[in-house]
């Protein structure tokens, strides 16, 4: 190749890089604008919760001309009880649900993925089908059942199902994960004289950590945001979780201002946002591999 042609190739390569750089810049500008548009409502809510009520609807911009913490102070006590009660309730329910799911789904998944018994395939199929079953078809008899046991307005109806492996999604997720763990590890444990329980506890469970983390994250987010089930079962305000409390604040919206509503809404999202910030990577991986929402 002559120097001249080499020079032109080099030049055109450099031009291509420059073109690509320019195209990427345009892409970034477009995407950046779109991100801003998408997140504008959330940012507006954050800013508005620091504004005095009369400015929230008159100032659509993001820079507040006046700042105040009144919305938080007043909103915290806007209902008959301080929001600390509702946050504590949400925490109890959420932690309970996480413990329940980790316990029951991992036991189930281990049996379905590793132990040999008749009907294994049938059980697995039942689990898969029950993922698709809409909860609304079950919720009425469940309600009747719990009300006959006098458990309405307690947390048992929210938590008992979690301890019985009914979030079949997580069972499925864990089964898939256990299948990627080499069988040789079980065999080694088997030869060393471990029965299924020791194998589960000392070999499989520690190796399942990524699946357990994904389960924890999604159980946290779903339970924290859940509205339908607490709305049905929790009747007295002292038992309300945060979403139900927020909803009852909306009902009395005429008295409580928009600012307070925004301030408390923002606080209710905070745990989810923190969880997201900390566990982003596992979360994204979790969705990508399983299609969880």
């Amino acid at each position: 190749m002559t120097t001249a042609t080499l020079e032109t190739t080099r030049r055109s390569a450099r031009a291509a890089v420059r073109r690509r750089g320019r195209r990427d810049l345009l892409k970034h500008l477009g995407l950046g604008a779109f991100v801003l548009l998408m997140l504008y409502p959330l940012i507006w809510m954050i800013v508005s919760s620091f504004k005095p009520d009369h400015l929230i609807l008159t100032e659509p911009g993001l820079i507040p001309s006046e700042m105040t913490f009144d919305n938080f102070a007043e909103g915290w006590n806007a209902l008959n009880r301080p929001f600390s009660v509702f946050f504590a309730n949400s925490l109890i329910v959420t932690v309970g649900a996480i413990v329940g799911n980790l316990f029951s789904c991992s036991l189930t998944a281990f049996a379905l993925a590793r132990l040999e018994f008749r009907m294994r395939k049938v059980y697995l199929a039942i689990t898969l089908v029950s993922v698709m079953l809409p909860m609304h078809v079950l919720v009425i008899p469940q309600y009747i059942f719990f009300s006959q046991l006098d458990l309405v307005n307690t947390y048992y109806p929210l938590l008992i199902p979690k301890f019985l492996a009914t979030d079949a999604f997580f069972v499925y997720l864990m089964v898939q994960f256990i299948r990627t763990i080499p069988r040789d590890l079980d065999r080694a444990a088997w030869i060393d004289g471990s029965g299924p329980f020791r194998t589960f506890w000392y070999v499989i469970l520690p190796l399942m950590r990524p699946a357990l983390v994904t389960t924890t994250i999604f159980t946290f987010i779903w339970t924290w945001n859940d509205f339908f089930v607490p709305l049905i079962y929790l009747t007295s305000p002292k038992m309300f979780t945060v979403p139900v409390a927020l909803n009852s604040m909306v009902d009395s919206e005429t008295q409580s201002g928009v600012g307070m509503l925004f301030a408390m809404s923002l606080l209710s999202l905070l745990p989810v946002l923190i969880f997201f910030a900390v566990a982003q990577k596992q979360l994204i991986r979790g969705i990508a591999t399983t299609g969880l929402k």
Partner: protein
Amino acid sequence: MSRVSRLHRQGGAAHVFLIPWWLGLVLVTAVPLVASLYLSFTDYNILSTPEFNGLENFRRMFQDEYFWAAVKVTVIYVLVSIPLQLGFALLLALILDRGLRGLAFYRSAFYLPSLLGTSVAVAILWRQIFGDDGLIDRALSVFGLELGSWLQNPSLSLSTLIVLNVWTFGSPMVIFLAGLRQIPEELYEAAKVDGAGIVRQFTSVTIPLLTPIIFFNLILQTIGAFQTFTQAHVVSGGTGGPANSTLFYTLYIYQQGFTNFDMGYASALAWVLMIAIGLVTAVHFVLSKYWVFYGDD
């Protein structure tokens, strides 16, 4: 140890491991499923004993204008918001896929609404954005459009919830991105060698290999959309109004079952929903034979 006795021993252990699952299957799933089927043929208000009334609940449904309103709202919501949501998800996934820097940032930013979209807090936010003098109202008044509150307007209120669902395109987008990663680079190379341009590569490589993922997202999001509750409840204050324009099907089940305590009728409504979801899913699976591409066979 012989295989049979080992199987036997593992079978015993398996049943211990499966105790919670068994209890859940029977008490939380199977018995309620059968019970709600039975209740759907009864008149039951939780205080008295269920009274068998045959097909009365289903007959009543046909004449119930609220039932038809709920069906209409839910079907429109699914038909409009799902294609838009998946369209955005696919478009953004394609834009982000080609080795763009800052992928992790964009992915998280677009995913954030999916994370929060079904919360009461965001529904409250939506009430303000589309309410009287809200962000949208103000923005449109700049262009001389005076629509007032979208939530008070029966012809606009459903669209606020459609927008909310489209806004959560991040979770299918993440799944699309994962799917795009799975497409082997060799296929693009081979296509290039065969003289395929960008467009041809897209239509002959990317789209066919992505169809299983599109199908997966379609099923998942459709089943979810049929069961939309929180947003509709909060945005309409639990009424499904104005003029039943946000009376989502599950909201109607809730009203009948837990406000009117008409649990027989609510069970019948729930069974119709389950059958509808089952049928839609089955139709999707049948149709998938014609457009979903599974490997080289």
